[in-house]
């Protein structure tokens, strides 16, 4: 019984770290544009699939992984330049609908560029499971957790210590005021998509050895990441991480102790519950309107 607990928690945390990376991407774009980027899951897919095809060309794994993340960043920037920027004066709802279109487009493109099959990336450091308190953990899970941890640390350094990061934060608080003090909000929007794609692709390459990757893996990951972002509070970085880990844990424990059939239901019940009872999420801003 005790070892079962540890196993469920371990698998929950691994899944949670992936959700957290996707949720962070949602929050970054949300802060810069006020819109939800529903193509976030597709960035994950682009990262994973690029890594697989780069590896197939004979590149060593580390190079393939880095290039794949870079490729996804280019895709993210292109999405912003070609689809979001021309419509930046439109309302957020329009932007959201555009991102849904982008996600469909990327999925279709992936079917053409690659194929419709499921691919696996070799594990970064072997498949020999690590035994821990009676549970077993794949070394790749540690990569995922470490990768997510590093991404969070990097983000907090970027937003807390660099001028450009602070400019992005300022834009999220008040775009007009940020423009008045000389922040180029268009660059901020562009950078936010690049950063979101970077995080997504990082999640994609880290998880491809465990969960595999295919042209349509982005759909479910995008939805789960969105649920995590909602749970944590849209726009809050600590909230995104918290939301992702909680969601992963809820799924892992739910599958273990209630029924595996309800695993996906948990994520969507959480979205509904948050929307009903806690619209700002756990760490979201408590917005008050002054009249």
């Amino acid at each position: 019984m005790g070892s079962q607990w540890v196993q469920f928690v371990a698998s929950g945390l691994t899944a949670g770290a992936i959700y957290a990376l996707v949720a962070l991407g949602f929050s970054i774009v949300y802060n810069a544009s006020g819109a939800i980027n529903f193509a976030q899951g597709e960035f994950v897919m682009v990262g994973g699939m690029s890594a697989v095809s780069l590896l197939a060309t004979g590149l060593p794994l580390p190079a393939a992984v880095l290039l794949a993340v870079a490729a996804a960043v280019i895709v993210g920037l292109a999405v912003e330049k070609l689809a979001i920027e021309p419509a930046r004066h439109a309302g957020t709802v329009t932007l959201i609908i555009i991102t849904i279109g982008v996600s469909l487009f990327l999925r279709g493109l992936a079917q053409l560029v690659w194929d419709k099959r499921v691919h696996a990336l070799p594990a970064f450091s072997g498949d020999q499971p690590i035994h821990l308190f009676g549970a077993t953990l794949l070394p790749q899970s540690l990569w995922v957790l470490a990768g997510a941890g590093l991404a969070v640390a990097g983000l907090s350094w970027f937003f807390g210590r660099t001028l450009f990061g602070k400019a992005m934060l300022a834009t999220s608080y008040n775009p007009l005021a940020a423009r008045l003090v000389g922040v180029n909000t268009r660059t901020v929007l562009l950078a936010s998509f690049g950063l979101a794609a970077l995080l997504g692709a990082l999640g994609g390459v880290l998880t491809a050895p465990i969960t595999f990757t295919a042209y349509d893996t982005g759909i479910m990951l995008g939805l789960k990441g969105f649920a995590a972002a909602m749970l944590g509070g849209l726009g809050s970085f600590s909230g995104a991480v918290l939301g992702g880990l909680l969601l992963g844990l809820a799924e892992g424990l739910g599958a273990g102790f209630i029924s595996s059939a309800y695993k996906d239901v948990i994520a969507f019940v959480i979205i509904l519950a948050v929307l009903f009872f806690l619209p700002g999420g756990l760490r979201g801003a408590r917005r008050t309107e002054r009249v």
Partner: protein
Amino acid sequence: MNDSSRYFKGARLAALTLAATLSTATAVQAQEPIRIGSFLSVTGPAAFLGDPEQKTLEMVVERINAEGGVLGRKLQLIAYDDSGDAEKARTFAKRLIEQDKVDVIVGGSTTGATMAAVPIAEQAGMPFVSLAGAVVIVEPVKKWVFKTPHTDRMACEKIFVDLQSRKLSKVAMISGSGGFDKSMHAECLKVASKYGIEIVAEETYGAADTDMTAQLTKIRASSAQAVLNAGFGQGPAIVTRNYRQVGLTLPLYQSHGVASKEYIKLSGPAAEGVRLPAAALLVADLLPAGDAQKPVVTAYRNSFEQKYKTDVSTFGGHAYDGLMLVVNAMKQAGSTDKAKVRDALEATKGYVGTAGVVNMSAADHMGLDLSAFRMLEVKDGNWSLVK
């Protein structure tokens, strides 16, 4: 004289024109192709079924046409992509019958898509050879519906027979939540007692799940002596990897749904020792020289792999069998009349296909028995026959 000559001239002209029209009409009729309709899941979650199926149909139609066609007429393939959506499959089946006026339908990659089209084919009196697995397609027998793949029940039985020979009786089942997975799960439960098998644990996972360690941890705690995974797609590969991860060493059985090289590729070394029932096609090289299926499966595999440069899968084989059954039935019937083709299909005896030797009857619209399945084991990253 002048008048009469003009009259005759006119008559001759008319006769000539008439003859010309008649002869072109018969020529057109002779060249009117036999229309083979199809709806397949070429994209979407079941793409790994529909993609090789479509490729196979195209390849075989091309070959038959190059050899002169059937009954002196060329074949024309009209295929739609239902992307695994039963509602689309239904619409396409209607379109094939009403607009494209096909002579026969060979298609339906998934059980869901097939069952959506069954009422339409039945109502229109359209011979329909399905390429999907579940037993509900032919049980109860439907007048116009046939199928080529083995059923999930046969897969369960084959596995249970193998378990009996290994003297194992307590089995844990882990199944996906797709149509195929659920159907096989239910069929296994139904026939388990017949083989003295007791199902001691039942777990499920979602179609897009990426981690099954929680379910497998529960199975590890049960009294199971072997584990049976009913599922297809990427799920079984994840189950296989997680299986080794949580340290399970019990014999693991997969279904025929994952019988493709891709499964071994995705699972990696974790697949070693996994057993599954599959068609002879996968192990064409391993078949003994006297095997009736050997020439058929070798020829199909070679031409497929030559043309498309990818590994052959049993699913493409189902499409091959479906089309060849229909072609044979048309030759037998000597026409493309739907009722006659149906009767000829039902009378198929001793057709050697990629799935096995087919002997249809009024009570059996699939015509395969357990011998059509071979028990395979993954060894050194490849299939091997279990003796």
